[in-house]
């Protein structure tokens, strides 16, 4: 073939050999003229891709129903046997047996003897040793120690077998939809806090169908049950409402009766008053001193009652009462002596440091003239430290009795009474008493 000197402008062919009829499959063709179905190689088809004919798909039994397919004859079997046996004998002779048992020589202690000669380079003296070679005794039941490698299919020059079946059908959209399994979404757990679509939530719920619209049909009996329940409930509610109504009406009736009675009473009293007003008033002489005495008596009784109450209290309560009377709120810890003044650290911070984080409202450095507080911190602590009740309970009682007694007897002294009013705690009590007196007088 002249592949044309002029066609050099085009790129040279990659494969020089032109596709020809595959020799292996043509050979039966040349022998006889009988039609042969099967793989046919087409000279016009490049790259040795086999051509498939329609005949390949027609079962040959249809063409010739009474076709005899005899079993292989004995001669055939014998021939194949000989051929294969020769081949495998050759293979087996070449191949060392993997699990061959230790040779009888090793077991009987016999071995091959080898004469091993060495020559010393310096002295040029040769020494010979006789070495016995014995097979290592191996456990006959031990599996093969030879590691096997995966057999990789060797590259073949054979043509690719034509695919003689139709392509698998593609799934339709409906079928694909049927195979789709919704991702597992839990109504109870969502540790990563993903936002889950409402649709997906509905999809999980077995009560809804895929579209999330229709609720599956309810059992008819269940429907009856719910209806009956509903009816019974409404009936019961009606009854309850009626009863409540009746009770309410009864209550209203009673209220009305009572009101009527009251009105009658009021009317009667009004009439009485009018009748009295019409009568002339005769002024009785009230003894003023008697009233005063009466009030004093009352006062003393109250006082005694109060004292009685105080004497019954425990010391702590008594102290609390005392403190309350003085207008102080004292916690229990202080009363019991358990509280300690908070310890102040030796290091003192600049107040600006502490107020820095408070915000911009705090005046800046220029306004703040002083670095530290005016008083030493220790002195401040001492200034506001509450006085301690150092002694036992008796002391407290003494103080109390002193306070109460003070009030009683210092009342006579008008000169000191002004100072007493300002300082002593007992005075406040008397103030309160005076107030109550005023109230009495007013009424």
């Amino acid at each position: 073939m002249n592949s044309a000197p002029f066609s050099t402008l085009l790129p040279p062919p990659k494969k020089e050999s032109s596709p020809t009829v595959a020799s292996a499959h043509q050979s039966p063709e040349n022998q006889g003229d009988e039609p042969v179905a099967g793989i046919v190689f087409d000279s016009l088809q490049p790259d040795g891709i086999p051509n498939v004919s329609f005949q390949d798909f027609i079962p040959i039994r249809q063409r010739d129903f009474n076709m005899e397919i005899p079993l292989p004859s004995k001669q055939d079997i014998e021939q194949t046997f000989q051929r294969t046996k020769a081949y495998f004998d050759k293979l087996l002779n070449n191949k060392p047996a993997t699990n061959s048992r230790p040779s009888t020589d090793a077991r009987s202690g016999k071995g091959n003897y080898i004469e091993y000669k060495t020559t010393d380079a310096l002295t040029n003296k040769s020494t010979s040793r006789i070495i016995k070679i014995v097979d290592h005794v191996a456990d006959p039941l031990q599996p093969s120690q030879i590691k096997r490698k995966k057999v990789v299919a060797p590259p073949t020059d054979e043509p690719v077998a034509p695919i003689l079946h139709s392509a698998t059908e593609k799934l339709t959209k409906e079928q694909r939809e049927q195979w789709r399994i919704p991702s597992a979404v839990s109504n109870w757990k969502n540790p990563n806090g993903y936002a889950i679509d409402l649709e997906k939530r509905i999809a999980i719920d077995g009560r809804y169908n895929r579209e999330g619209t229709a609720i599956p049909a309810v059992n008819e009996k269940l429907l009856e049950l719910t209806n009956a329940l509903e009816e019974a409930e409404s009936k019961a509610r009606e009854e309850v409402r009626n009863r409540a109504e009746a009770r309410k009406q009864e209550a209203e009736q009673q209220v009305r009766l009572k009101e009527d009675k009251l009105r009658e009473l009021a009317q009667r009293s009004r009439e009485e008053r009018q009748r009295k007003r019409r009568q002339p008033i005769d002024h009785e002489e009230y003894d003023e001193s008697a009233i005063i005495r009466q009030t004093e008596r009352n006062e003393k009784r109250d006082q005694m009652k109060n004292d009685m109450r105080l004497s019954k209290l425990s010391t702590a309560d008594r102290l609390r009462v005392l403190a309350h009377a003085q207008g102080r709120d004292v916690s229990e810890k202080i009363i019991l002596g358990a509280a300690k003044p908070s310890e102040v650290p030796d290091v003192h911070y600049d107040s600006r440091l502490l107020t820095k984080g408070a915000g911009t409202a705090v005046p800046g450095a220029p306004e703040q003239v002083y670095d530290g507080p005016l008083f030493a911190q220790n002195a401040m602590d001492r200034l506001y430290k509450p006085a301690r009740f150092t002694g036992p309970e008796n002391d407290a009682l003494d103080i109390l009795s002193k306070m109460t007694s003070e009030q009683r007897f210092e009342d006579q002294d008008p000169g000191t009474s002004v100072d007493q009013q300002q300082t002593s705690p007992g005075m406040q009590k008397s103030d309160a008493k005076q107030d109550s007196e005023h109230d009495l007088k007013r009424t």
Partner: protein
Amino acid sequence: MNEHSDDVYVRARLRNQFGYMTWVPEYVEDRISSKKGILQRYEDYQQKQAKAQEVKTDSLVKYEGAKDVPRNLLRIYRGEADTSALARYEEVVSQKPQWHAPWKLTRVINGHTGWVRCVCVDPVDNAWFATGSNDSTIRVWDLATGKLKVTLQGHIMTVRDICISARHPYMFSASQDKLVKCWDLERNTVVRDFHGTLSGVHSVDLHPSLDLIVSAGRDSVVRVWDIRSRSCVLTLAGHRGPINKVRCLPVDPQIVSCSTDATVKLWDLVAGKPMKTLTHHKRNVRDLAFNPTEFSFASACTDDIRSWKLVDGQLLTNFNSEALGIVNTLACNQDGVLFAGGDTGELSFFDYKTGHKFQKLETTAMPGSLESEKGVLASTFDRTGLRLLTCERDKSIKIWKHIDGATQDSHPGLPWNPSLVRQRF
């Protein structure tokens, strides 16, 4: 003179400068033609033929000369013309299936504690059979009475296949624990282990004339072992998925294997490569069964059973197997009955020659077993072909027999209405 020289000059110039434009180089043409359909190519070829006849000697167009005639191509079209659909249909209708007696359940054998995965009948005197199970045991049962004879323990995982030798006192078992074991049936012990498989072994078979066994499994290679030396003599690689079943024949192809890659391969043992790959099946080919009376075999995938003429592997019959579901197992007997056991517990019986389904049965689930445990996993006919043994997922072995006294009139079987539709591709 001048004119003539001009003419010559012009011609020479034209040829030298633009000659390459008038024809397309061969390899470009090939590439173009590879994209054409077969009909188009045939038309082109005819055109070329016609053009060759009316060729002129002084044309500028370069003529390459007729290539060797693609006789095969011609034959294909001639063949197609011969077989019109109508003619074929008439042919099919004239092929009446043979009547076979219907089958019924006669015995249920219990004893395994796992799925029963494989069964093999004693080839010598048809007196006993062995089953392998998910409970990793092999049990040998008496065929006549159904009594347990012996339990063989040694495998540590599911026993997937068993074959019993007619020439030695040996039984071979393949298991998912990557081992093929050789049992001595005179002593009931393991005498050989065949180590070296990379993954679970799914199938094992003995060569009918040589002392070789052939195993295949999840590592998608067929291994040929020498029984005596326990060495792996040959490894046949070629399948692209786990192999489900491998069976041996005394003549070429000496090994037939079917695989999850939806192919059946016929192997040339001496050459060590596949003679033929059958790609008609669309899905996982789970089982194949040889016909004991003629030199052919059947193979099954989901909804599809086909039989093949042997040696060259031509399509012989398309079985009437629509809507059959997953077919786990096939068995064929001397009377021309092909049995297919489905994954859903459906038993189908076919006439081997025509592919007619004459009986459909449902297995009876063992009381107490689940609905999902209804499935046939393995099956075989005994050597007489009169009893069918099925191994099932409900841990039982069932024996089926002909219905006594059944005639064609009393049990006509499923109706025969052939259609060309089932010539699926």
